[in-house]
């Protein structure tokens, strides 16, 4: 019974997509695929950049906790690493600004 009700809830959620069939076959304006791809690619870039920076920060914090005397070296490596990872996400942003009208 629970499984059946879950199945019906899923089907009713999917039926929200019905109005898309009303559009028919006429394309009133060409779809701007560049903008859609730009949105997805920027989201991917930012998400993966955040994961990588989280890993770098966690490693730096753990290293600092184990050996507080090594603070200058760890701080240098952390800042350098974070900036390099950040710049990879920024390359995606620059391509978007160059290509999306």
């Amino acid at each position, binding site marked *: 019974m629970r499984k059946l009700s879950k199945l019906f809830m899923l089907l009713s959620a999917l039926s929200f997509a019905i109005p898309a069939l009303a559009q028919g076959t006429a394309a009133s304006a060409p779809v701007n695929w560049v903008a859609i791809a730009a949105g997805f690619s920027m989201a991917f870039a930012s998400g993966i950049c955040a994961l990588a920076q989280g890993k770098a920060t966690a490693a730096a914090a753990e290293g600092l906790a184990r050996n507080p005397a090594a603070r*200058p070296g760890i701080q*240098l490596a952390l*800042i*350098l690493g974070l*900036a390099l990872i*950040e*710049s990879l996400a*920024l*390359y995606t*942003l*620059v391509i978007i*600004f160059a290509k999306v009208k």
Partner: protein
Amino acid sequence: MPEQLWFTEILNRLFGGAVTALLRSLSIEPKHPGAPITNAFAMELLVFSLLLILFLLVRSRLSVESPGGLQHLFEGVEGFIQSQSNEVIGHHSEAYTPFLAALGLFILSSNLIGLIPGFESPTAVPVVPLGCALCAFVYYQTQGFKHAGIGYLKHFAGPMPALAPLMILIELISHLARVLSLTIRLYANMFAGDMVTLVVFSLLPLIFPVAFLGLHIFVSLLQTYIFVLLTTVYLQGAVGEEH
């Protein structure tokens, strides 16, 4: 006629005719003959002259017995860059401090001048970070040649002579990619900061944008530090010796 800042308009009124004539004599046609000096160029000139006045001021007030506040500030800057390049490069790194300090101060002032209403950051235009990156590139290559003579080219050949043809190609591309990455990192940070500030101002014009201006200050400082640090690391790759 493009949209000009007040400083750009003053410069164009005074020097516009002469600059257009100079560009035409080099067979370059300016995009707007009435206003050949762009906003970015005018802001660069302003930053340059302000820094020059500041340096001359400090220089005239140098004293051993009773240093003033400005001297303390510049000694701090010099000490910071000197200690960092000592840590990265090692011995004899004092020779590189003037260039790194000048580069760092120029980029920092260019980034921060955008916060003042009526001015804009020259580094928010792609050409200016490209200029800074090319200066850094030419500097570390010439320092490499000065340090090792023609033997500097061995750096591009890789660990084994058998791999040299492949390694030369890879090293060449990676060195050019350094220029690209320095440029785009600085440009994208400044440009994205401007965009974010614009968006936030259009949403909540009253109190919250102050946080984003603070973010812009932090990002300016961080990006200047990263630019100077990476130039130091590239210098270490060019002149560093493994004992």
